[in-house]
């Protein structure tokens, strides 16, 4: 399946574009997507934290991803 991943803040700067499409096996868990992205973009490893959001909620490491999910990479937030 193809996953579209929205990118924000420093993650968008590291990847160099606001959205990324990656090919992954059906139901791939969040932690494997993160590992793949960290391998492709080693600068992501330097961040204080890196989370994945699925449909506007923070996702657990083991959560399986679906092609229809709205997925985003969440570097350390700093609102307020």
């Amino acid at each position, binding site marked *: 399946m193809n996953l579209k991943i929205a990118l924000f803040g420093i993650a968008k700067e590291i990847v160099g574009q606001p959205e990324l499409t990656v090919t992954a096996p059906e139901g791939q868990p969040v932690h494997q997507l993160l590992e793949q992205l960290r391998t492709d973009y080693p600068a992501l490893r330097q961040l204080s934290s890196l989370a994945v959001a699925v449909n506007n*909620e923070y996702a657990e490491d083991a959560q399986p991803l679906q092609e229809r999910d709205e997925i985003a990479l969440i570097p350390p937030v700093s609102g*307020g």
Partner: protein
Amino acid sequence: MIHIDLTDQPIDVAAALQSVEADGAGAINTFIGTVRNRSTGRTVVRLEYEAYDSMALHQLRKVAEQAAEKWPMVQKITVVHRKGTLYIGDVAVVVAVSTPHRAESFAACQYIIDTLKQVVTIWKKEFYEDGDVWVAAHP
């Protein structure tokens, strides 16, 4: 009862305060976050806030709902966050909470701003005279 907004226009603080008025609310606590001229020892020229809008709005509402659940006497809550380019003194965020008695207004308002800073998908880039930094990005 809960009003949430994320805007690229200047925040109307007076309107935010008015929005939490209620005849049963004797106490209103308000937190206003503004852009400071100094950050970690450097002179700030301007800020840029970037937001993942749909998730930020969803998470802001969740945080406000959690506060209303923890302090059931809460009457009204308004949270407005700015995005885009801000300069020194500009208002970045307003949280306003009305309750019958004062202790709950302080507690709920502080809970909202503290939790907002941990979970809401908004990112701040500080611009100095000699560079820029995504705040909190690195350890």
